[in-house]
């Protein structure tokens, strides 16, 4: 995109600049992309939400940035992944280990299985500090205790030497967050951190993340399939479908003017307290598996506005004329006179 300088350096306001990220998996003797040519920039202090149905490549995008895609099955290619003046797409494994857990951290979806069952939570939170900061066991423990307090583990001091099985799911996710934040990362990748939790616990964890973000000023990529959460947390939203970004905009803009038919459909499927959940809209059809991607628009066969041209040619992510920071991958909505939009605007 034009706003980016060509010298390979991320502009100073960007915490992370991902360009042309493609992650493929080897299935049945062939490579199939699960993430295709994804580009976005994360501003400093910003929360970018990555939204989409299951299987559309959200986790793999985050894992690719972290360099955690399993090497035996997956292959990551990118023009550049710029972080603090380094290109992570070309960084050595040793360099990536320095960045992981220090500059960029990740919280995973499964709090019940993401902590090591045979190590105390105190040890697990201290570990990154001892490794990245070279702190002594004692200093690391003191700092870890401070962070466990910060993520509001009740009586953290007396629970420091407890094991994961002695904590509830919500508490384990707090421990995970504490672990991720131990070294005060510039960027937190939160991959559906609340999906596995009860609704009330979800709300608490989201509140905690919001608070921690305010205190630390880190930037965050928040992955979810729940647009309702996005409205509360994100500054900007990237909607993903079948490994591609299909729409990206400021959160208010996206909710006011959802433009891609997929985004529209997602918005209609948010559960709302003022509506009966029985009537909840579900998008017909499924995300195509990576081994059977159709040509042209990947959403076409589920789309109510589909024309022949949609299935024939690849769509580009293009800015809207009225809102240049709002880009959409749908030629009908960006090139055509937009009849639906006109009605909405009027």
């Amino acid at each position: 995109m034009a706003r980016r300088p060509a010298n390979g350096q991320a502009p100073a306001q960007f915490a992370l600049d991902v360009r042309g990220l493609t992650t493929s998996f080897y299935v049945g003797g062939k490579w199939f992309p699960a993430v295709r040519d994804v580009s976005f920039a994360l501003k400093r202090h910003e929360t970018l939400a990555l939204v989409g149905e299951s299987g559309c490549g959200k986790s793999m995008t985050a894992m690719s940035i972290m360099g955690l895609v399993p090497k035996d099955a997956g292959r990551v290619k990118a023009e550049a992944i710029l972080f603090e003046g380094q290109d992570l797409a070309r960084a050595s494994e040793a360099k990536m280990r320095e960045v992981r857990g220090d500059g960029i951290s990740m919280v995973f979806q499964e709090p019940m299985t993401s902590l090591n069952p045979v190590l105390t939570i105190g040890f697990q939170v201290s570990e990154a500090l001892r490794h990245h900061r070279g702190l002594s066991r004692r200093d690391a423990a003191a700092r870890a205790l401070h962070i466990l307090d910060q993520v509001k583990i009740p009586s953290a001091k007396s629970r420091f030497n407890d094991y994961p099985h002695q904590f509830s799911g919500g508490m384990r996710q707090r421990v995970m967050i504490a672990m991720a934040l131990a070294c005060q990362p510039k960027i937190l990748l939160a991959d559906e951190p609340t999906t596995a939790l009860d609704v009330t616990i979800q709300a608490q964890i989201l509140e905690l993340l919001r608070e921690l973000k305010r205190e630390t000023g880190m930037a965050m990529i928040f992955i979810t399939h729940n647009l309702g959460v996005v409205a509360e947390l994100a500054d900007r939203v990237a909607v993903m479908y079948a490994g591609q970004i299909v729409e990206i905009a400021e959160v208010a803009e996206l909710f006011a003017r959802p433009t891609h038919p997929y985004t529209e459909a997602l918005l209609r499927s948010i559960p709302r307290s003022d509506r009966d959940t029985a009537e909840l809209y579900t998008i017909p059809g499924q995300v195509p598996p990576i081994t059977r991607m159709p040509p042209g628009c990947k959403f076409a066969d589920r789309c109510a506005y589909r024309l022949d041209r949609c299935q024939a040619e690849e769509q580009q992510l293009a800015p809207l004329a009225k809102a240049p920071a709002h880009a959409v991958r749908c030629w009908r909505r960006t090139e055509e006179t937009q009849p639906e939009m006109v009605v909405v605007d009027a």
Partner: protein
Amino acid sequence: MLAYVARRLLLAVPTLLAVMTLVFVLVRIVPGDPAQTILGDQASQEALMAMRERLGLNRPLWEQYIDFLRDALSGDWGNSMVTGHPILQEILNVLPYTIDLTVASLIIGALFGIPLGVWSALHRNRLVDYVTRVGSLLGLSFPAFVSAILLLLVFSIELNWFPVISAGDRSSVGEVLENLALPAINLGLIMTAYITRVTRSSMLNVLGEDYIRTAHAKGLPNRAVIWIHALRNALIPVVTVVGLYLGILIGNSVLTEIVFNRPGLGKLIVGALSQRDYTMLQGLMVIYTFIIIIVNLLTDLTYGLIDPRVKYS
């Protein structure tokens, strides 16, 4: 923890009692007259009667049972029908040899098997993995007496490093170790093969776990991920399998004992079996049960060391 051990040992009492009862009944329903066995085919009728009297075989069964239990508890396990020596004494004489051999082969097995298993898992489907897998399969399927003879040929006869007959003297630690080396290597190789295979498969499982991904996400160096995060979890199934195998090993070391002409429980069992030494067999079965109980207890205590989710209750 101490209370747990005490409770477990207390729980072992009914088990031992059951085994002793079983042994008592078994010996009495096996065909063949013990008096006849002791005195031989040529014995006169009077001599047989006298011997039955002496062994108490004419008395009511329950009286024999009570006597049997009382004697057993007081340490009088009777005399061997073949040698006439006290049974408990005979067993206690060979027990140290068996314990030495078992512990030594376990140490060898763990020392080599665990790193080999980890190494193999880390190089899954590469050359070293194939070599390790084929090697461990060989180790498991190779007859123990053949490897024993090979070891003897090479290290005792050709190189003269170790005694050919590893019997004997337990007077000094050096002596014990010298006699122990080859038999322990022989059984240790099997143990190594066993532990290598279990460690490899268990390690492969663990490496796919979410918490391993978390450890990588923290940026830990590979060795910390493997030796701190993965191995300890991977050892849990290894302990199970080793615990089971130890019990088998103690009774099955007979071929090794024979080739190296070394005393031990295995040889005692086979000897008693072939000579129909019933009283000796009784004693051996009880001792064997006791050993299994101890091995199980040690296995469970080891779980507790590795896995904090294990509770002693």
